[in-house]
């Protein structure tokens, strides 16, 4: 299933997906029919204000939730046909997550935090360590491997989070406001890191943001307002 993700069609495709929360008068349509295709190797920004439904869209694309209506294809296979186990494996092995908040276990070491996905995958301690160190090496954080996560600065924490997202060699990284919690300088560093992964390692990026500068660095932007797609832009000079 994992290798199939590199097939010719889009990695992920959403067709007219809808999602609402609550009932009756309290009903809130988070997504009111959005279609989107994410191709291997591209970077795509989902842009919108708070409450626009952009995070909901990402959650649906990342298979963290099911749409109420519409279809969601993973490598051209209907996501509803996948078993819970397959979904879990897909998220564990092919997806990496970077959130605005770090969700690091404060009293665990950097290395322990980074190898959590490998631990969940059931990989042995020795290999976990080797792969965790390799990815920390890559992000120039190897010297902090033994430090407790709580002792790191914001930028360092976000790097650890990216290392955690990378440790399983994912095909897609979903980043929800990856720089939202960082100052401009460290934010820019984290951005550089994400785009270099995209360019040098062919990792597909799906970035949710309200920051137009970050969105502009992506190959494509999808603007969302009130749960609807308002426009889609291809960044000039970059082929989709």
């Amino acid at each position: 299933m994992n290798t199939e993700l590199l097939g010719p069609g889009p990695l992920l495709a959403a067709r007219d997906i809808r999602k609402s929360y609550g009932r009756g008068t309290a009903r809130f349509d988070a997504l009111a029919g959005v279609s989107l295709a994410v191709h291997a190797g591209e970077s795509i920004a989902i842009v919108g204000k708070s409450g626009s439904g952009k995070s909901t869209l990402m959650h649906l694309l990342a298979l963290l939730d099911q749409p109420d209506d519409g279809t969601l294809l993973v490598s051209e296979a209907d996501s509803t046909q996948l078993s819970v186990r397959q979904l879990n494996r897909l998220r564990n092995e092919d997806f990496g997550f970077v959130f605005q908040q770090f969700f690091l276990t404060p009293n665990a070491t950097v290395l322990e935090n980074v190898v959590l996905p490998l631990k969940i995958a059931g990989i042995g301690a020795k290999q976990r360590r080797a792969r965790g160190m390799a990815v920390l090496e890559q992000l120039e954080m190897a010297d902090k491997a033994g430090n407790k996560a709580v002792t790191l600065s914001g930028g360092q924490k976000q790097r650890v989070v990216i290392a955690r997202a990378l440790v399983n060699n994912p095909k897609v990284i979903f980043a929800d406001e990856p720089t939202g919690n960082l100052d401009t300088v460290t934010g820019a560093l984290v951005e550089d890191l994400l785009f270099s992964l995209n360019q040098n390692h062919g990792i597909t990026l799906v970035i949710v943001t309200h920051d137009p500068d970050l969105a502009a660095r992506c190959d494509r932007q999808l603007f969302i307002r009130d749960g609807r797609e308002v426009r889609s832009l291809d960044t000039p000079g970059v082929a989709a």
Partner: protein
Amino acid sequence: MKPLDLARAAIGNTFRSKTRTTLTVIAIMIGAFTLTITSAIGTGVSSYLDNEIGAFGAPDVFTITKTAEDAAPADEGPTPYDPEKAANGGDGGAQFETPRLTLDDLDTISKVDGVVDVTAVQHLSPRYVEYGDHGKFELLVNVDGVLVTPDLASGRQLEGAATGGQILLVTSYVENLGFADAEDAVGKSVNIGVADYTGEVHEVHATVAGVMFETILASGAAVNNALADELHRVQSIGAPADANDLALQARANFDASWGEERVDVLKADLADLGYTAKTVADELGVVQTVVSGIIGVMNGFAIIALIAAGFGIVNTLLMSVQERTREIGLMKAMGMGRSRIYALFSMEAVFIGFLGSVIGAAVAIGVGTIANGLVDGTVLADLEGLQVLRFELVPVATIILLVMGIAFLAGTLPARRASRQNPIDALRYE
């Protein structure tokens, strides 16, 4: 996630909130401590009783009495008066005694399949015992003495075949009779005063074979057959001719290798003929039932304490699930299955139970050992060989497993809640 990693993570999580875990563990500990103590008392007392039966009680002997045929069941009020049942007055006995066994009865019993040998048990009531001229002391002879092989302070057991009279004295007699110690008494000759039917006192000589510790099975001195016969002979001087044919009890031997079932069959056979047959174990059974009843009630209280502590675990873990909502969400987002999340929290509960029970049991064993030392030789000095608190591997291990089981049950609610958490709700911060 591999089971080992899961277990490690669960144990690690337990220590994240140390104060909370410690308090919960203490609650569990108290329950486990109480349960360990009560079960140790149960084990101690019942193994004491078992020892008494096993080591001292003859396993192949019945004490047989004639069943009172028309004894009214206890719940039907008093038994109607029947002049034919009444025994003659006098001799300090009750006026309605258990029906006596006659020679015919003994004959009938001896013909029952499985009975090897049957003898009438004569009631022996000597007046006193005396050593040299150190004074006379009342002597209580236990006719069941031959049923047991008592624990001796010195000397040897009675010899059934010996032709001379032998007696086993109880430790408390040694000093009063004028012996230096138990060792000193062995082999000495004592005089036993016994009255005949007309009241005239005769003296019978007996050799002290040994000195025994008091047991709950038989209080009073034990005498060998030769001495018993002699005492009975003297007692019966001047008695009416037919008096000797009567006995309250008879003793029947059966094959010692018999299992419980065959003994039960034999008992039933005797019951059909109108005799009540009891082994030493049967007689102690009553005591054991009472003791296990009391222990059962105490165990019940300990288990109530444990159940209360179980709610402590529920509380602790619910708080933990609440605190770790995001972590759970993250793990689920990263592909951790529901069952693994469930297992993670269950294991945490079981580990808390394990900690509490092991510490509780260890403290109980420590305290119990000290208490045994204090009680032994003071409060319970009369019951030699009784170790009140007895800690054995199987009951202690059972308690630990039981507590872990309760902890697991307590963990199901929080673990379920954790496993059902929606990763989106957990991670939402828009």
